[in-house]
């Protein structure tokens, strides 16, 4: 049915699935300490990496590598230069001259304050995503085994981030998450598909994207590898083919603070807390009810009938009387609602989709419960081939943009950077006069993050080829001499 055939056996399984059956998950953040041994480790680990579109899977392993990680593994500078600038600069960007500003990573979320990935922290070279059915003894044993295998080659730069599965795929504020997940061409279609599949090139190198062009793919010189496939022009070897970029951000959620704020804003005329009102306000901020039911379907109360609905648009709610213009899901995916009209809007939106693979961490906390002092949040993970046009665009031009779609001062009420003071407002259109929340605080803070490359099987193979010794120095196959280390 689909014209596009993906080389699925070459593509890491995370592209196709977040492995929902694997309730347990651990992210390991690693730094290369010995290039030759790290490559040997990668060679050995390759057999365990999960590839393909699987419906049945046991424990899974996926490996992603940052720009400094590629260098640490021996990729030479000219090859690294074929990667886009934003990937090379990384999420924190060396001088913090603009990327943190445009992404809203400021104040308490500034890279200088991050627990990992920030300028004050060691470089993160390799991300290991290890998921298993249950957080049991066998999962722990597997984790210990991996640690033993990379010992001496890589070291952990931060305690492992253990994720959990909250019931019904909820995130910590209590809302069902990840409903509007794009499907792409070549992927097995879902029975309830509500939109036509996005072009595969938005999420994988080597295939046409939404502009009917192949995204420019990182490459190495023709002589660098015998195994990598050739680029379309035949002049180089394609390192990107069947790979993609992985954006990882650890987002800490202040659950108690969020619900306290909603309760405060929803106080009745008599000054008493009204939990139903707070729930209504929070749902207005999100654009869905906790069950996942979209507000455009059920504006007045949570209706679990609509809980997984993704087949809606904003054509009957152009001014946001049901779902506010500034609601999180409307800003993150405006569907048909952007200027100048629905057709143009759908085109623009399809060119900015991301595949989300996030997982929650930290213990659950009930709505309206007092803070328990525990850290919790979301390890936000998304896939895209053009970080600048997809992830960064959504973050900068939609979520953090207070002028989104004719608004004035409304940043995203859930994840916006909420400039302190009067700046952060949230407008709830209503007949005949709007409601407006003023002085919204920031309840989601960035605690770490990095841009990673999620290589194909062939690319991982290339990066793990044995290091060769030349002239008494170690040289990698990627170049005869450019990227050497002293033996």
């Amino acid at each position, binding site marked *: 049915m689909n014209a596009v055939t993906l080389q699925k056996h070459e593509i890491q399984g995370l592209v196709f699935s977040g492995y929902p059956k694997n309730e347990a998950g651990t992210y390991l953040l690693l730094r290369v300490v010995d290039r030759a041994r790290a490559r040997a480790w990668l060679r050995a680990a390759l057999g365990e990496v999960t590839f393909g579109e699987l419906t049945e899977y046991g424990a899974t392993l996926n490996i992603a590598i940052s720009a400094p990680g590629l260098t640490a593994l021996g990729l030479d500078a000219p090859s690294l230069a074929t990667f886009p600038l934003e990937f090379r600069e990384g999420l924190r960007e060396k001088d913090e001259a603009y990327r943190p500003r445009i992404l809203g990573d400021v104040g308490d979320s500034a890279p200088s304050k991050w627990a990992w990935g920030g300028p004050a922290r060691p470089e993160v070279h390799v991300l290991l995503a290890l998921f298993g059915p249950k957080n049991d003894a066998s999962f722990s044993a597997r984790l210990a085994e991996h640690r033993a295998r990379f010992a001496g080659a890589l070291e952990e730069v931060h305690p492992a981030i253990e994720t959990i599965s909250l019931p019904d795929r909820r995130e910590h504020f209590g809302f069902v998450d990840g409903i509007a997940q794009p499907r792409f061409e070549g992927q097995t279609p879902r029975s309830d598909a509500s939109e036509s599949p996005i072009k595969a090139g938005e999420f994988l190198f080597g295939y046409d994207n939404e502009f009917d062009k192949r995204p420019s793919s990182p490459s190495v010189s023709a002589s660098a590898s015998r195994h990598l496939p050739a680029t379309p022009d035949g002049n180089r070897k394609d390192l990107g083919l069947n790979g993609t970029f992985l954006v990882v951000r650890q987002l800490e959620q202040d659950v108690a603070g969020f619900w306290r704020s909603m309760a405060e804003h929803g106080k009745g005329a008599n000054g008493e807390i009204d939990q139903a009102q707070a729930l209504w306000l929070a749902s207005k901020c999100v654009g869905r009810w906790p069950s996942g039911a979209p507000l455009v379907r059920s504006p007045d109360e949570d209706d679990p009938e609509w809980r997984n609905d993704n087949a809606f648009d904003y054509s009957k709610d152009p001014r946001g009387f049901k779902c506010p213009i500034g609601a999180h899901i409307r800003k993150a995916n405006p569907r048909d609602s952007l200027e100048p009209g629905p057709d143009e809007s759908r085109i623009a939106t399809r060119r900015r989709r991301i595949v989300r693979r996030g997982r929650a961490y930290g213990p659950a906390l009930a709505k309206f419960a007092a803070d328990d002092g525990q850290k919790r949040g979301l390890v936000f993970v998304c896939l895209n081939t053009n970080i600048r046009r997809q992830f960064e665009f959504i973050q900068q031009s939609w979520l953090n*943009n207070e002028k989104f779609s004719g608004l004035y001062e409304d940043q995203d009420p859930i994840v916006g950077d909420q400039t302190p003071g009067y700046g952060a407002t949230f407008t709830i259109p209503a007949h005949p006069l709007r409601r407006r929340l003023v002085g919204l605080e920031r309840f989601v803070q960035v605690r770490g993050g990095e841009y990673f490359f999620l290589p194909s099987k062939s690319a991982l193979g290339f990066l793990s080829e044995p290091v060769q010794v030349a002239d008494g120095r170690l040289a990698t196959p990627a170049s005869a001499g450019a990227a050497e280390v002293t033996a």
Partner: protein
Amino acid sequence: MGNNARALPQKRTGSGERRAEQAPISGVSAKSGRSVALDAALAGNALTIVCPVLPERKAELVALLTRFGTSIDTTTEMVFDQLSSVHFMRWVVIEGQTPEQPAQLAFESNYDGTLAQHLADLYEHGARAMHLIYRCCAGYPFADAAELSEAQFDGAFSFLLANEVDYEAFYVGRRGKTMRQIRREARLRDGIQRFLDGLGSDPMRHFGGDPAAAYGAIVAFLKQNHGADFEALSEPGPAAPTRNIAAIVVRALPVAALAIPLGPVLLGLYALLRRKEETDVPESYDVVPAEQTRLLAEREDFQVQNQLTHVVALKPGLFRLLTARAVLYSITTLARFYFNQGNLGGLSTIHYARWVLIDGGKRLLFFSNYDGSWERYLGDFIDQAHVGLTAVWSNTQGFPRTRNLVQEGATDEERFKAWTRAHQIPTQLWYSAYKQVTVPNIGQNSRICAGLVKQPATREALERWLELL
């Protein structure tokens, strides 16, 4: 402005259209408080001045402009905030195409009123800055003077106008709005919101659900706290522009009439175009050095709006020059008579944009003052306005490959963006009179203020007005 307005020295002949927009208005004196009915054309005009820089003073000029540009709010040599005629303004140093060609200083402003009033305004609030800047340029008559006396202003004006360049195409997002109106209406809208916010998150509760009570309270609040702005609303301003298809037809007819006898020639020109399109060399992906992108990106996204200065050489030969001019003439005609309602072919983010030919038609200079991020601006170009843009820039060097003048080109997303960054240059000094106001905000503020001037008559009309807030 006003008091310093003086008769302009004879300006060299510009295009007829420009001159018509500059028709003087009698008895203008904002300071005397006399209300004057301004013609729509007297809001948001374009001035472009391009002059060679003295090589020995180039470094000084760049440093000076950069200093002003990074301290707009505190610079004493020009008190930007006091300027009463300017919407957006910039100075940018453009390198020569060859080592022999001196760098040039380009100035663009989008101003209200007559040219004489605009220059008087610049010198009233920034004579020292103007003098320090143009002292670095060739042909400036007072290069050796430490200070500029008021008696020398006429000489300075003559110098500036001698270097004026006409635009090929000019777009105004909100025609017929003066800068002071835009600021005033934004203040009033903000005032209303602050007032309502003071009544809690659900202010309608406060008015017992009565729209007339809400309206009355808002008006009373504004009269009390924003009296001057509120009173000024009833002063007549420039008329709002309307779409004028007839004017487009009038301009298109002679072209169409020529096209019939010239049919064979046009076919030949088309064949020539197709051959050129096949053989022109597009730039490769990696033409943009990382440093260039960083240099530009580091200066972006500090406020709601951004600017872009772009300069690129035309492909050689008369054919490309004439094609570019014809396309730009079509754009400027459409921009003036059709796309005058806050959007340009689907783009609703542009406040002011213009194309100017420099170096005797060898290079095409583009200035834009737009809302939001560069990535969004370019994305809008590609998603919605690629036909017009491809038609213009396919006549310039390195542009992604096109077909039939308007096809492909800008839709080659990665190449188009790389090409744009590669020919974009850093702007040393850029000023916006309303940093927090977008084009859609201007329109919405106007609708809100229209309801303040004349109370909506019915309950339904009152409710519709309240929904604007």
